[in-house]
């Protein structure tokens, strides 16, 4: 029993110390987020340190799970209780929903003092504005349409890095013949749809993509091109591990890293896995745009939306957070860890690796035309209800080897209609 008592004392002391060390109340900023992995958590630490250096208290509220689904439940409950946190990690269209509820605060003062209009990519600013006012601050830009390749495996199989869909299938056949798993994939709905949206972008092009996922145009959704996309998806499924159901994406990434599989279709966060395995971009692994989507860029952006507060000191802390989140030190640390692109457009890109530099170049190019598109699988293109409906159809299609592509296209359109 004595040992337990001692343990309990130790635990209570360990808990009590940091609490008593908290500084006098200069204003607290509570941040609800799901940046909990090693690299992300380290990046959040840099944000926290800066806030504390500025004399404010940081209250961390991390809730992992379901790509932020658990955190959203918490946020909704907090909002209903009339007690939302100062800042919450929120995705694209949801910011508008929260804005419509009248819960978000205006950040115009911070924005104009720090020239956000010049710093942020002009095409994307509507995401962070509600009713013409800034209500959220972006922290990064992820690119989703990437293909990750293990060049050693490709070399052994005599496969060529694919630039078109046909080349992708050819490479996959070679990998398969050489005894490798051609495509590493985890059977989770968002992963299934990540592959699907890249295929849509490749087959329908950026304009078709926009019509399908943003305008939800029925003709595009049931058209011949969409059926062709489903056919391609079915073909790709043949190159995936039949035991993939429920597999986390990073386990799939590990299969490519260890040379069991040849490639993976995944967003740029996959890079953090390669980095953690001490691999170097360009030599140990290759990142190429998903075949047929060169020059296009599907984005997935994390933002911190700011909620209305009453305490004047807390508002100061909140404004400080909004400012610091866009400052260079945090943008560098955070995005190096996450594998994403800094959202600030005046960064020195030489501190980033080959993949991110390529990403920055493609981003600039895509911004000029129609190439810049919101990611459907990552809740940037449509409401959650529509996204859920698409997920259901795509995942069910992918899990049924006998599914009919033409029927799937019809189901897709019907499900979207029902969810609106």
């Amino acid at each position, binding site marked *: 029993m004595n040992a337990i008592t001692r343990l309990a004392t130790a635990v209570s002391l360990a808990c009590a110390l940091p609490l008593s060390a908290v500084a006098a109340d200069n204003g607290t900023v509570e941040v609800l987020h799901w940046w909990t992995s090693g690299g992300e958590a380290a990046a959040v630490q840099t944000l926290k340190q800066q806030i504390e250096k500025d004399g404010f208290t940081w209250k961390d509220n991390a809730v992992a799970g379901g790509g932020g689904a658990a955190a959203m439940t918490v946020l909704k409950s907090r909002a209903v209780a009339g007690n939302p946190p100062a800042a919450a990690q929120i995705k694209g269209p949801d910011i508008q929903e929260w804005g419509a509820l009248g819960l978000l605060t205006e950040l115009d003062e911070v924005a104009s003092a720090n020239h956000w209009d010049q710093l942020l990519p002009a095409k994307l600013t509507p995401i962070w504005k509600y009713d013409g006012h800034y209500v959220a601050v972006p922290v990064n830009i992820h690119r989703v349409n990437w293909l990750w390749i293990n060049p050693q495996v490709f070399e052994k199989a005599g496969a060529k890095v694919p630039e078109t869909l046909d080349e992708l299938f050819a490479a996959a056949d070679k990998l398969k013949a050489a005894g490798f798993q051609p495509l590493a994939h985890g059977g989770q709905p968002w992963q299934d749809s990540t592959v699907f949206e890249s295929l849509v972008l490749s087959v329908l092009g950026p304009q078709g993509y926009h019509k399908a996922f943003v305008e939800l145009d029925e003709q595009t959704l049931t058209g011949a091109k969409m059926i062709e996309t489903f056919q391609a998806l079915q073909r790709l499924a043949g190159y995936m591990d039949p035991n993939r*159901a429920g597999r986390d994406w990073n386990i799939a990434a590990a299969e490519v890293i260890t040379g069991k599989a040849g490639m993976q279709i995944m967003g740029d966060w996959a890079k953090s896995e390669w980095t953690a395995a001490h691999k170097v971009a360009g030599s140990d692994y290759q990142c190429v745009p998903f075949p047929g989507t060169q020059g296009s860029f599907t984005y997935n952006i994390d933002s911190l939306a700011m909620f209305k507060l009453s305490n004047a000191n807390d508002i100061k802390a909140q404004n400080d957070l909004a400012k610091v989140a866009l400052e260079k030190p945090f943008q560098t640390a955070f995005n190096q860890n996450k594998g994403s692109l800094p959202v600030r457009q005046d960064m020195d890109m030489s501190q980033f690796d080959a993949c991110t530099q390529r990403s920055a170049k493609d981003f600039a190019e895509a911004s000029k035309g129609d190439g810049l598109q919101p990611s459907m699988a990552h809740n940037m293109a449509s409401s959650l*209800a529509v996204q859920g409906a698409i997920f259901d159809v795509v995942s069910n299609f992918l899990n049924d080897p006998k599914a009919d592509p033409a029927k799937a296209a019809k189901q897709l359109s019907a499900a979207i209609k029902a969810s609106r």
Partner: protein
Amino acid sequence: MNTATARLRASPLDALQRWLPKLVLAPSMLIVLVGFYGYIGWTLVLSFTQSTFMPNYRWAGLTQYLKLLDNDRWWVASKNLAVFGGLFIGISLVLGVLLAVLLDQRIRREGFIRTIYLYPMALSMIVTGTAWKWLLNPGLGLDKLLRDWGWEGFRFDWLVDPERVVYCLVIAAVWQASGFVMALFLAGLRGVDPSIIRAAQVDGASLPRIYLRIVLPSLRPVFFSAVMILAHIAIKSFDLVAAMTAGGPGYASDLPAMFMYSFTFSRGQMGMGSASAILMLGAILAILVPYLYSELRNKRHE
């Protein structure tokens, strides 16, 4: 003591005494009225609204229910619950009874064995779900293990088979709850009068027959408790699905509790989520209340 004089002596206090039981129960009554039925009422109201992202009160009539009944995922989830609930309750009962009866045969180290059967109940599914996910995964777990050990033809891929994945949920759930059922029945067996069994043995009845015909039927109340607890676990199964399959492959292993949660919170269709919650409660009401009523009424006379 004369009751008339007693009443005369302590009239105000006596009045208090008579009200005291109700007074003690009052806070709980309030809690039940607000925290259970008030909230159910609120959910009922929401199910008739156009609530999407957050609650709103724009009337939608029966639209949400119609949409729900038209939703394939909801039917998959409901059918899964029927299969899962039936198998889970049935197998847990059989296994629990069997282990309890065997353990009741003067086993040495009974306490130790009992603890082994009981421990899964102590762990949450967030914890054990990952372990089960591995064990049942074809590339990683039992499947690979048995082939590594030389059983080449062994194939166990239920977890990735949309038709069979629900049985994986049953396996993990039975593992978690059957030990508890065992404890309930073991406790019940300890309360059975030994002389009944002795008398039956003198009459020449075999042991299995005695259990089947005499002992187990006398444990009817234990069955009631066990079914109540198991049904409650089955209907609320959420952590289990979330940790093991997250409803997949596709939505083949979805359950109503999971459906309700994801539509209400993650998929921004709060009205439909509420409608599913109401249908769930309605189904529970239809199945459970007759059972509850008959069991409670039977005991009135005691």
